[in-house]
């Protein structure tokens, strides 16, 4: 086994001649810090699957998925029933898409239109009743206005009937619901 002893001795001696003891500390330190820093690089984050609740990374798939999710989210302006909404979503104001928040009253005079539900491929008649009697909610302002007409075609314009039919003079506008009242056939 002399040749093995000779090989080991030669390589250890040559390494000892070429490297300093501090370089071992330097390279070990670099390895430790580098391993810890690698997950912070954008390359490493891009390879991970997106986590729930994480900010979207802007890819085309993420955008399509976010749009599909918004179509079914009652607190999103893109929710399919909100195709003609103009106002604050009652679902963000303590009510829901078909009920008023406590302390407000639903106006019987309303704007009515149709929206297409992509989930079942049908068109529905949607009534956007305002909730009245408190000052504006201020959350989730949406303004999509599909098939709203200018006020010179008044019967299908949604700009002038804010809480106008509300009893007891509750003219303060708070938020808007989006109630399904029938199927558009």
């Amino acid at each position, binding site marked *: 086994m002399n040749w093995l002893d000779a090989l080991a001795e030669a390589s250890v001696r040559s390494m000892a001649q070429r490297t300093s003891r501090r370089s071992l500390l330097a390279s070990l330190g670099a390895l430790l810090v580098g391993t810890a820093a690698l997950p912070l690089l954008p390359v490493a984050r891009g390879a991970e699957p997106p986590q729930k609740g994480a900010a979207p990374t802007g890819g085309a798939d993420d955008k399509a998925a976010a749009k599909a999710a918004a179509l079914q989210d009652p607190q999103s302006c893109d929710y399919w029933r909100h195709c003609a909404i103009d106002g604050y979503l009652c679902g963000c104001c303590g009510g829901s898409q078909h009920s008023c928040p406590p302390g407000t009253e639903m106006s*019987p*005079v309303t704007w009515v239109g149709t929206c297409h539900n992509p989930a079942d491929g049908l068109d529905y*008649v949607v009534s956007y009743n305002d909730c009245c009697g408190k000052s504006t909610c201020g959350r989730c302002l949406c303004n999509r206005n599909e098939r709203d007409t200018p006020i010179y*075609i008044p*019967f*299908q314009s949604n700009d002038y009937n804010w809480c106008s*039919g509300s009893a007891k003079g509750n003219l303060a506008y708070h938020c808007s619901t989006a109630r399904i009242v*029938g199927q*558009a056939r």
Partner: protein
Amino acid sequence: MRPALLMLLACSLATAVRAYEPAVNYMLQCMGCHTPDGSGEPGRVPSIRDTVLPFARLPAGRRYLVQVPGAAQSTLSDVELAALINWMIVELGHATPQGFAPFTAAEVAQYRRTPLTDVRSERERLLALTH
């Protein structure tokens, strides 16, 4: 030739304005103000429910039902408007189909061309005639 004709037909069907049943046209054109049962809002929005049948039995009332701005200026065709008024007389006015003379598209077209300028006093005159 035939495929070209079929395509033309398909295109014209696809671009045609969507036609709805009278009940849906009531929701889209009337219900927002007149409320689902046609009773309206006392002092603000007149009732359809109480007046549509008595008005449909008077010649001047028939003109009023077509000339009232919400009807005459709607985006409905004469055929659709005639069907909608007939639907309202039965469903909101609780008439039997034999209890009134149905509106035709020609009758609607004839009245619709003439604007009704003083809607409120005409309505009051008709209410006095029917009571």
